[in-house]
């Protein structure tokens, strides 16, 4: 699990064995003291490596070894956000609304915001395409202002482009809300 920004490099299987990313150092203090570790980053066959978005990784991703490996079809690489730097989508929902959202990655935060009190029996359900609940539905009850929703364990297994179906009910009270979902890589 990463916290900050990182690059996920995936071996595409077009070559045998691990792939060496020769212009990236995994030492925390960079090349001055860690010359002996230069080239210590490998991408295992049939596997992935998550590389913290540091200077050498950024340069490699833009125009170095990682970029060359992408161009040659050896690896795929994606820019990802860790749990501390997730990306949030917000949608406005009226009472009884159902909307769909395409996940940007795993779900790390969910909250509703109301301009008035929601009903004591109000519910917000968020389900993935398999029908698994991402949050505890009862958390939508009696919220005034900001209410954080409790994530289920399935939220961490959510993948990008999975379809989330979000349904808000104020139990006939007519209160709308803003749903804010935060995703990470």
């Amino acid at each position, binding site marked *: 699990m990463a916290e900050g920004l990182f690059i996920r490099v995936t071996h595409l299987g077009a070559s045998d064995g691990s792939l060496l990313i020769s212009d990236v150092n995994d030492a925390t203090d960079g090349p001055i003291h860690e010359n002996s570790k230069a080239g210590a980053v490998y991408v295992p066959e049939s596997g992935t490596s998550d590389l913290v978005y540091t200077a050498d990784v950024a340069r490699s991703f833009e125009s170095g070894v990682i970029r060359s490996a992408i161009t040659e079809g050896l690896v795929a690489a994606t820019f990802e956000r860790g749990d501390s730097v997730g990306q949030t*989508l917000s949608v406005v929902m009226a009472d009884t609304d159902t909307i769909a959202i395409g996940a940007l990655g795993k779900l790390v935060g969910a909250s509703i915001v109301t301009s008035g009190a929601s009903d004591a029996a109000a519910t917000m359900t968020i389900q993935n395409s398999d029908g698994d609940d991402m949050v505890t539905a009862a958390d939508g009850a009696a919220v005034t202002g900001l209410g954080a929703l409790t994530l289920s364990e399935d939220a961490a297994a959510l993948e990008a482009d999975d379809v989330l179906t979000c349904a808000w009910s104020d139990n006939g009270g007519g209160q709308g809300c803003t749903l804010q979902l935060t995703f990470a890589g």
Partner: protein
Amino acid sequence: MAEGLFIRVSNAAADTTPSVLLDDCYLATDGPAHGLTRSGALYVPGGGSVDVAYTGDVARSFETGCLRGMIDTGTLTAEFLRGDAAGETIAVVVDHGTAQVAAALGKIVSVKIISSGALNDPATINVEGATAGGVLDGNVAADVAALDGLSDLTLADEAAEVAADEVLTITLVSAAAIQRATVQLTFAGADA
């Protein structure tokens, strides 16, 4: 074209004026230890701009170093931008018969439509920029008849011409069945 995070540094002076040196940024791939001879290799040409990856030395220069000094004295301007792989996404819920608008955050690199049930057959979705025009394939509305779930729409070349703050109009036609969809637009920094 940048992929990750980057800083675009621009020099508004006439192109006949000398380039501006940023003496605390390194272009060498191995950083200051081996890149000392390349220290100061980063120049911003008069009347031009350079895109530099958001690395440690560039970040420090942007916050409190040479680059910040140049910005404060009015010599250069700089903006923090996201490359194509690090775009920023917004979600817009659109109903049949009611167009929605959104302000672009940069060029468009992805448009996805998501429905919670099957849309009507026929059904279409369109995204148009006030200046760029239609940004979907063929510059026309995309066919999303009976879509149930998520579709990643093909973009026209004009999507890359959308500029930040350009007004986008999003229109869904689905006259029966599910009449609502969510459109997720991902933006990145426009090409220099």
